[in-house]
């Protein structure tokens, strides 16, 4: 295996583009483990830790939260920009793994790994984030909803890098995240994220579920049932009924498909209730 630590994005892209089995190394909190197990064996590892420009967290001209792909969970938890715009991102970052992992793991790595149990994919879908993907030919913006292609697969293909995640300004909307993990703050069994605009009634809701499929699932049916409805817990729970039936979640040692269907309804409702409660009237 070869290793490179480029100091510019251009260099990184050039190396990534020169070998189809080159992989970007962000925080390494998943990739290095997978390599240890020899479940993956990249020919070239392109270490992004020399690219400070990817670590920035800022506010865009339109008020959007601009997260560099190499921003660590720890940096996100402490970022005033995150807290002043979409604090849910900091809260969720604080639920991921443990201190050591949060010190090194990055948001870009989290979404690009695309493990179904990762926290950020459903959150980014619910928040309507846009991913900036850069290749040697230039960059493009991909809505989070389209970004996730499969387990461990995203729109950032070979030779490309996710450089930035843009989360729209909250504009009065409230965000929520609910999870049933194994133990406290452990690996997710099912999670859900929601973003709600409410003013006595729910005006608009975006809800995404994680761990119920290869990619985060946006539950548009539920969203339309919620729109115009009562944000009270009982009403939201009522609206969430039937969400499970529309899913085909995997069965594994932590949950049967049926249990995930059930949990999906519970966490979707909890995320929506939390989001509605935080929406500015």
């Amino acid at each position: 295996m070869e290793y490179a630590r480029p100091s510019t994005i251009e260099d990184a892209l050039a190396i990534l583009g020169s070998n189809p089995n080159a992989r970007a190394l962000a925080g390494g909190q998943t990739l290095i483990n997978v390599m240890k197990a020899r479940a993956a064996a990249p020919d070239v590892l392109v270490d992004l830790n020399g690219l400070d420009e990817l670590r920035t967290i800022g506010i865009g001209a339109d008020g959007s939260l601009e997260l560099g792909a190499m921003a660590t969970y720890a940096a996100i938890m402490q970022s005033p920009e995150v807290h002043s715009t979409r604090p849910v991102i900091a809260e969720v970052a604080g639920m991921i793994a443990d201190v050591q992992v949060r010190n090194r793991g990055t948001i870009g790595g989290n979404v690009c790994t695309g493990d179904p149990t990762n926290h950020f994919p459903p959150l980014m879908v619910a928040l309507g984030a846009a991913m900036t993907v850069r290749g040697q030919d230039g960059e493009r913006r991909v809505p989070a909803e389209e970004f996730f292609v499969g387990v461990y697969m995203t729109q950032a293909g070979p030779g490309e890098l996710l450089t930035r995640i843009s989360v729209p300004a909250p504009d009065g909307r409230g965000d929520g995240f609910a999870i049933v993990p194994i133990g406290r703050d452990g690996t997710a069994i099912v999670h859900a994220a929601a973003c709600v605009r409410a003013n006595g009634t729910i005006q608009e809701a975006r809800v995404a579920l994680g761990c119920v499929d290869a990619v985060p699932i946006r539950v548009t049916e539920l969203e339309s049932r919620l729109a115009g409805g009562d944000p009270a817990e009982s009403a939201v729970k009522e609206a969430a009924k039937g969400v499970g039936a529309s899913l085909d979640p995997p069965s594994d040692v932590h949950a049967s498909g049926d249990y995930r269907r059930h949990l999906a309804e519970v966490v979707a409702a909890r995320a929506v209730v939390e989001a509605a409660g935080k929406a500015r009237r």
Partner: protein
Amino acid sequence: MSETTVAPTTTETEAPQKGFIGINVPRKEDQRLVQGEGLFVDDVKRHGMAYVHFVRSPYAHARILSVDVSKAEELDGVYGTLTGDEVATLTDPFFQIAPLPGGHVKDYALAAGKVRHVGEPVVAVAATTRELARDAAELVEVEYEALEAIVDTERAADPDAPQLHDDVPNNTIWDGHFDYGDYDGALEAADKVVRIKRLHFNRFSSTPLETSGAVVEYNRGTGQWTLHCNNQFPGFAIIMMAPALRTGMDKLRFVTQDIGGGFGNKICTHPQLVALCLLSRKLKRACNWTEWRTDQHMANSHGNERLFLDVEVPVTDDGLMLGFRARMIDDCGAYTRYEPLGCIIWAQVTPGVYRWRNVRVEFQQVCSNKSPCGPNRGYSRMQHLWFTERIMDIVAQELNLDPVEVRKKNYIRSEEMPYETPNGCVYDSGDYARCLDKALELIDYGSIEERRREAESRGKLLGVGIGSTLDSGTNNFGQSQLVNPDLQFSGNNEVATVKLDIFGEIVVTIGTTPQGQGHETTAAQVVADILGVTPDMVNVRAGHDSYWNSHAGFSGTYASQFAVTGLGAVKGAADMLAGEIKRLAGGVLGGVPPEDIELAEGFARIKGNPEAALPFMACGAIVNANNAGLPLELRDITLNCRYVYVPPHQVPDKERKFGNLTLTYATQIHACVIEIDEETGAYDIVDYGAVDDCGIRINPQIVEGQVHGATAHAIGGATHEHFPYDEQGNLLTPNFYDYHVPHAMDMPPLKTDYLESPSPFTPLGAKGMGEGGGAGLSAVCSAIQNALRSAGGAIVYDSCNPYWRVWELMSEPAKARENVTVEAR
């Protein structure tokens, strides 16, 4: 053989004065361990050492058609390989504990001809670095012919099930009938009979944080191997290995220092150690093997999985249970490495803490295409004690009895101690009812109903649970004869030497292999009190080395016995040394009789005349380096005393499977409170109380630490830790990704209390302890069932209850309830 077992003789040796015994002396081990200066097995390095990686079977059951190591051996940096065929030529199969036909199992260091579980070592590869060894392992070509795997315990004994081992029909390793008291009479006398179709105790393991490993060197000149390793029971390993390697026992020198947790899981490493012996001899270099975590999960000892079928409990109207009947199937996995001892070990605690006099058990052990089982903290008793506590809670629920009152009614009483159980075990001392009261106090039992209502208002179902264990320690290995009458094992022993050296240094060696139990410290406490010094002045050698000659056949650290056997040996040796010092000093100080000499502050002095004193340094110097002036009658004094502690065991009655199987029975009663989220089945343990009674506590802090640790294992085992397999025999939780062990946030704050009921049978009144975690397993299951009473009243039938199972119990309580019937007589 006498008709009833006689209780062991009450020990009447002079108890050392309590000076350092009973107080929290800081551990000697800590100084090195908090600075990263411990010596764990992977820290041992040798010049030119090879790193070994095992090629492992991806199949649960397959015939090995061919093995080709040529490409691996050609790789630069590879020293060589070892194949199953070589092993089968160079060694004999390991000795089997089971009688025939179970004894037909042929177990080698590497798979020979067939693989029987995923992860079974097939080839060993040695190279200059860890990574290169793995590279080379990937180049080994093994061709398999897959065979149908059997993973289902119940189906394993079906005549049409695939057979793992030649000449072991129906995959049945052992079966036996246990019949105590008058079960039929009890059934006749019962007012009600509660029947439970099926209870299941899950496979899991304590997964010590340090995996297994060794650095093995071969001395070509002497033909001796030195095994720097973390095996926790060298006595057993050597008995297994020497005949297999066709060598003498003394050719295997075992050395351990710091061991990163054992919990029984490091007893059965002898197959890998044999492979390393062969490799180090073949390659003429030291060989390091450090197990990968994933390999540890896939191929190291798992705790025994056990099914309890057709359980029947006769009960009288006033809630007295008269005994039980059950069919038990124990699943030991692919090979019998320590098995079938699990088929008898449970009988140490046949009625648990209860006065059940009539017991009938059909016990069967089967093998299956899963990782081999071995001792795991609470070995075989934990499974059984969980079963007794499940009986208690299920019967209580079905007959609407108060779970506290019914326990107290059925508990063996303190005034009945020593108590002989229906199978002849003699519980030495204890007060279970008082322990229960203390446990309930810890969790503020009086306020439970109020807390239950408060929890309900938050959408939580609150439950309170109680569990018990008897941590039976100081095995009588004679129980092995109850599974195989031809075996020649009985009793137990442990060794210590205590010497006084030239400069007055006190040096203690023990045959044990501690893994965190603080033996260096507690041994020093005992010696200090006997020799009248401080523990600081006692140098206890770290670890184990068979060169010290301070070990015996059963030496090791396992099965809750150090406080009895280890410290018994230490006390014996120290008493001998004290006697020698007194005789010596008396002689030197002018013919004073030894009984007039006292040992204090590093001096041997004449009682009542502290001026007439001989410093220890002088004693050591006279005997070791200046002895020409010693009178002849003192010349037998060596100041180097070796003592073998042998507990007062007798050979049990093989016919009746009757006799005292361990010397001490420490008590644990735990109580806990849990809250289940009524929407999801996810739950938290919100309150926890553990009460331990292990007789005299040498170092209370160490005892309490064992209580904490055992409880954490129990909570892990009751909640998320399990080793499930798919139908093809793939382990589904092969590492800490999916095998969730409790972390700091998962563990509830533990409240502890204690009782000291001294054992009348042991040198220090202490009892072995450390395996009492099973109480927690029962308590958590009990609490879950209690919480679900208002949600359909499901019974908890499995020892491991991840959220999905709790949700199933909540959403389909009727299904779980089908498991139980009550017949009124």
